[in-house]
């Protein structure tokens, strides 16, 4: 038995009222914890999905443009002082930055005009694995495809791509091509057939489903194969880099790549990045605001309860003061009572909130590629915050209790 026996006994006496208050306070914490976990998991899932929808940093060769006109006739823009991009230089440059662990894909491209089935057509050389990391929205209609010219050791074992909407370990080889939907029609390319590009035979590994983008009119092939065909070893036209992740500092990543590759243009695809980040941050900020409102309401509720408790127990306070209990001790009694309610609400609310979040995510199937992670630190932090909030809520009532004049409290009765 010590000082805290009194508040504990009092809480037990008013068990129903204490339970109700704890329940209501817990409900607030359930909302906060539940919303946090749902938003964090959905945000993570969203980011993964958004990341899969393309790159957010563009690396291009540096060039100067000049608007040329003569005798009143415009001759359009003339590019000069063009620096060629080298695949290895770009790759090494990007992977040497401080934020290299935030880079999820480096997809180089060589854009050339080539003779396909005797027709001049735009052909894009790509790195199959890197490209498919950022083009997961591609729907490729493949034949019973076997890789042509594939060197097995050049692909990681874990490489998997979405083919026919199903995940399997299909791989594209050096002499495989994929045709955009319009390109396939114009060039008469069919999946599983062979075709000639610059006099060399290639296998049509698949045809892209129509997407309504530039990609419909392009033919995609392995970048090294195109470099060989065009005698441009290591050369790339531009490189797309995907670096979207939770709280990714895109501007800092761009600045670091610029430092690493000084003669090359590096630009953040701002609109895309901002839109993605806005979506993710909006959800997080919304949760933050709602959590704040819930906590403030819970705080006021507890303060009102404590205020009523002080008014109701004025004679008790008077008696304790007449026994020599100091003002500080009286303050501690009421703060401790509030702390007990806060701590139990925090523990119960966190457990129930976590469970609720898991159930919501399961029922609504929102966890594509993301999972709810239980962090003991989150539990400690949540309970800690709730304890601080509950003590803060009891400050005014506890001060009122501590300042009660013993004689007036006793005479009053």
């Amino acid at each position, binding site marked *: *038995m*010590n*000082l*805290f*026996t*009194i508040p504990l*006994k*009092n809480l*037990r*006496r008013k068990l129903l009222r204490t339970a109700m208050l704890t329940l209501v306070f817990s409900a607030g914490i359930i909302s906060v914890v539940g919303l946090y976990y749902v938003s964090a998991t959905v945000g993570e899932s969203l980011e993964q999905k958004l990341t899969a929808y393309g790159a957010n940093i563009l690396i291009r060769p540096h060039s100067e443009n000049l608007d040329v006109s003569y005798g009143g006739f415009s001759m359009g823009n003339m590019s000069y002082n063009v620096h060629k991009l080298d695949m290895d230089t770009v790759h090494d440059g990007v992977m040497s930055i401080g934020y290299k662990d935030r880079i999820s894909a480096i997809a180089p491209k060589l854009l050339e005009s080539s003779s396909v089935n005797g027709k001049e057509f735009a052909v894009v050389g790509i790195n199959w694995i890197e490209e498919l990391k950022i083009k997961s929205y591609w729907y490729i209609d493949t034949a019973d495809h076997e890789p042509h010219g594939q060197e097995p050791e050049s692909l990681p074992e874990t490489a998997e791509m979405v083919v026919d909407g199903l995940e399997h370990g299909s791989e594209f080889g050096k002499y495989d091509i994929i045709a955009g939907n319009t390109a396939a029609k114009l060039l008469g390319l069919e999946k599983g057939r062979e075709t000639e590009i610059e006099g060399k035979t290639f296998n049509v590994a698949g045809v892209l489903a129509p997407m309504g983008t530039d990609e419909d009119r392009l033919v995609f092939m392995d970048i090294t194969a195109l470099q060989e065909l065009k005698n441009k070893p290591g050369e790339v036209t531009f490189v797309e880099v995907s670096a979207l992740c939770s709280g990714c500092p895109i501007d800092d990543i761009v600045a670091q790549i610029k430092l690493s590759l000084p003669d090359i243009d590096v630009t953040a695809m701002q609109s895309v990045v901002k839109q993605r980040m806005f979506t993710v941050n909006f959800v997080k900020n919304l949760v933050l605001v709602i959590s704040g409102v819930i906590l403030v309401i819970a705080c006021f509720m507890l303060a009102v309860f404590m205020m009523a408790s002080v008014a109701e127990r004025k*004679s*008790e306070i*008077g*008696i*304790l*003061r*007449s*026994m*020599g*209990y*100091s*003002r500080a*001790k009286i303050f501690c009694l009421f703060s401790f009572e509030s702390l007990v309610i806060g701590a139990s609400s925090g523990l119960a609310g966190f457990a129930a909130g976590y469970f609720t979040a898991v159930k919501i995510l399961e029922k609504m199937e929102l966890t594509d590629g993301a999972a709810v992670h239980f962090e003991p630190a989150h539990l400690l932090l949540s309970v800690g915050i709730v304890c601080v909030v509950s003590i803060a809520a009891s400050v005014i009532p506890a001060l009122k209790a501590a300042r009660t*004049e*013993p*004689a007036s409290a*006793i*005479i009053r*009765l």
Partner: protein
Amino acid sequence: MLKVDNIYKSYVGSGVVTQVLNGVSLEVNRGEFVCLLGRSGSGKSTLLNIMSSLLDADKGDIIYMEQTFRGMKRCETDRFRREEAAMIFQFHHLMPYMTAFENVMLPFLSGLRPAGKEQKTSAYEALAKVGLAGKEKRLPSQLSGGEQQRVAIARAIVGKPAILFADEPTGSLDKANGDAVMKILSDLNKEGLTVVMVTHQRDYAAYAHKVVELSDGNVDSIKVKSA
């Protein structure tokens, strides 16, 4: 032991000043049983509250063992009430959610350190002294009015105070229970406890060595019983 020196006290309510005490002086010696007698509104309870440091006087001072209350800090008056003095009231003011034993333990629960075995023994002894042995685990609601007041007395004496202030301790009791309470107080006084009691019942003033009669905030008379 305790000297009341020219105490003045007034209350202000709704803009009206009511003078309750007008320069009251008296002395309480160690081991004495002092009775403050008077009609309702004579200022006896106010005087008792000032003597026990629950209330501050407007003017004048209380001197306890050569120390003036006016010079004391709040923590020192708290310590006075915790270590030197004890109080009982007309209404027992027991914590309704605590057993008789737990109520008696209250003076020992003002710290973070758990109450020791010795303190628990003192509580059992105090309850036995007021005739409540065997009823330690009962809640106040399971005790009669007289028994509840006896628990309040046990709570007051458990810390072995030097002086006990009793404000109308029999005021809410019937004759039999009132007599029982007075006998307990008389016995405690005989064991050496200084008692200052407020009452309006002249019968009970007979237990006191010194009877101070108050009227309209003034000391009307001080009668000392010869030994």
